[in-house]
Every structure is written in C-alpha cells, then in structure tokens.
C-alpha cells in the first residue's frame, strides 16, 4: 500500500481539507484508506458529511497493578519507570500514578518477582466508516483520544495500525498540527509527505519546522500553499527552492471553499469545476503518475 502523509505544522492551513478532497479525487483510480490521526481533534468525518462514526474499538494501553501477594517492595519498578509514574513510599506498596503512565511495560519486565499484573486503561477509540465514491470504496479510520489524556502517540499508532490492516491501494494519513513525536509517528515509513501551508508568517514559520523534520527523516515532500492570493508567499517560495521541494501546488483563496464548507460537502464533489477542485485533481493525477496502476 502506497502511503501519503498530509501534514504541515500550523493548524488551520487546510490539512484535513486537502486530505479529504484528495482522498475522494483518488477514488477515481484506487481503493483509498483515509486515516484521521489527528486524535485530539479528528474532523475528517465532518468534512465528509458523515453524521456518525461507526464500528468503535477501544484503544487499550497497558497499566500496571501491584500483586501485593508477590511484591517484596524492592523498588525496582519505580527505578525503571521512564515517566516517573511509580512511587516507592517508605512503608507501603508501590503507588502508581495512572495519568503519568505511558504503558511501556518496563515495570512488568523489570519486576524480579512477577508482581506486576497486566491491566489496561482505555486511552480512546478508533472508528471505521465505509464510504463509496466513483464506484470505489473510501475506507475512513478515525482515532479519538479521550478527554484529559496526556499520551497522544499510542492513540496515533492504534489508529494507523487499524488503517494499515485494511486492504487498499493507497493510505492517506491526515495528521494534526505540530511537529512533535505524534506527527513523526505518522511520517515514519511513508512514501510521500504533503505539507499544507498558507502565505502568512505563521504558516512560513511552521512550514520551516515541518520541512526540517521531513528532511531529518529523509522523506520526499510536496507542498500545497493553500489560500494563495492572500498575504505574501515570496519567502515561502524561496524556502521551498532551498529545500529542493519538487512540486508546489497553489490553491487559490476562493469563495467556493467557504460555500462548500457551508453545504457540508467536499468541494471536489460539490463544485468539481472550481479552480480549487482543479488544483486538487492536478495533485491527484501527479500522485497517480508516481504510484502507477489505477
């Protein structure tokens, strides 16, 4: 399965907008899997006009419990804990702070007395919706982190895993904003990165961050400058040349986008002849040239 990760650093540049419309455009050629790995604020399903997320599965993360019958209070579990989630108090059994636990199982493997019981806690949920466009299936996998959870990466991984298990021709990963480890998890083992930016100083700043990450991970990157026409994109273009970005797409700042947002229908379906849709179709055709088949 060919993997494309849509990202960009800054929030609100149109990552999900590009991912969703590109996914639909690609159903002209392929069975497409779209994974919404923006687990803190997933909303691809809203852009697709879906009312309800379906086929819920819990994301379970390891959480240790102490078997007080076996525990000798040696304190090894507290020492090996990488997140400082276990306290060894002076006159009691180890105390676990579930909020701090990342579920790494170091305590489970480190305990010399097998006194750690394997429990779990539910970090969030993944969902699967099956959609049909152009007589081809669009498989949507959505990850949702539970409110108040501090550990995002395991939820991103679980969502990605569920999406990778689907038998499609192409996987599109739609990430959240930022450049942290939850984003690099979506960039790992991907064939192509599509970075969506906008011609603003914030867009420029975060574009630089994401280009650095992508360069560090040795990945190929295409860039979409969304809302082209507002602001000054000259610095963006200079930087893209410096980083040797081979393909740049300019989505014009256009009323059609807002109108289709209001209808709640993706622009490539609602206004296929719009200049915006045309740019997305151009992108999809270039992808087909790279992927082949179709």
């Amino acid at each position, binding site marked *: 399965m060919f993997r494309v990760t849509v990202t960009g650093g800054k929030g609100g540049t149109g990552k999900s907008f590009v991912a969703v419309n590109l996914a639909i455009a690609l159903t002209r050629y392929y069975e497409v899997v779209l994974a919404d790995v923006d687990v803190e604020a997933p909303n691809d399903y809203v852009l697709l006009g879906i009312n309800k997320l379906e086929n819920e599965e819990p994301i379970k993360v390891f959480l240790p419990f102490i078997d007080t019958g076996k525990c000798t209070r040696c304190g090894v579990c*507290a020492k090996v*804990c*990488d*997140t*400082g*989630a*276990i*306290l*060894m*108090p*002076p*006159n*009691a059994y180890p*105390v676990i*702070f579930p*909020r*701090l636990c990342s579920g790494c199982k170091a305590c489970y493997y480190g305990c010399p007395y097998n006194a750690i019981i394997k429990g779990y806690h539910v970090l969030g949920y993944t969902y699967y919706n099956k959609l049909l466009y152009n007589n081809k299936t669009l498989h949507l996998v959505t990850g949702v982190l539970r409110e108040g959870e501090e550990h995002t990466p395991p939820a991103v991984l679980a969502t990605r895993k569920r999406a990778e298990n689907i038998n499609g021709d192409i996987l599109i990963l739609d990430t959240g904003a930022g450049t942290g480890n939850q984003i690099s998890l979506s960039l790992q083992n991907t064939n192509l990165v599509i970075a969506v930016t906008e011609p603003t100083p914030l867009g420029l700043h975060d574009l630089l961050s994401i280009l650095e990450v992508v360069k560090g991970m040795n990945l190929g990157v295409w860039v979409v400058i969304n809302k082209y026409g507002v602001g000054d994109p000259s610095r963006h273009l200079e930087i893209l040349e410096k980083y040797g970005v081979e393909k740049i797409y300019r989505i014009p700042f256009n009323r059609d986008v807002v109108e289709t947002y209001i209808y709640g229908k993706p622009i490539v379906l609602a206004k296929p002849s719009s200049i915006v849709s045309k740019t997305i179709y151009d992108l999809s055709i270039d992808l087909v040239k790279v992927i082949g088949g179709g």
Partner: protein
Amino acid sequence: MVRIAFPTDKGGLDDQIYPRFGRAPTFTIVEVEDGEIKDVRVVQNPGSISGSGAGIRAVQKLVEEKIDIVIGPSPGPNAYMALQQSGIRVVMILGVTVREALEKFLSEEKK
C-alpha cells in the same frame, strides 16, 4: 532528630527557597535536633532533569533521604499525592532564604 528538606537552586542555608517543588535543581537537607542545626547537605533533585513525573521523582529522592518535613512552595498534584502516600509533612513558606524559613518554622513549632 528531624530531617527537613528545602527545594533550592544552588543549595545551602543562604539560598532562596525555589518557587517550584518538583523542578527545583537541588534540595537542601537540614538535620535539626533540639532546635539546633546538626547538619546541612545539598542533594541533586532528579525531578529537575526528568521529562515527566518530576514531582514523583523528587518525592522518591526525599523518601530515600528519609525526610520528615518539606518546607517550600505548594507542591503540584502528583507530588502532593506522593508526599501524602509517603507520610512526609508539607509546610508552605516561600520568598525567603532557607535559614529564614527554618527559623520561622522552628519558632512557630515552639509555640
């Protein structure tokens, strides 16, 4: 004999009390017997360099050092729970040096 720990920066009796508990670079540990200072030591706080769980690591260090009382700022939620579980008493005094805080604490204890 009581062992009292103060979150500090460089440490020592004349250092200011550090405004954060879990992330303080050092703890200044003072041993007091019959109202007299018997010993002053400075230890590194492993919480100051840890990515997460700083409060827990700081308390773990205090447990290892057999601390009875912490004098300093209000601890964070994790450190608060950890201190309770470990039976370490918390006294909140801020904005002064270790020596001044200790004097204030001892004079109030006498009453």
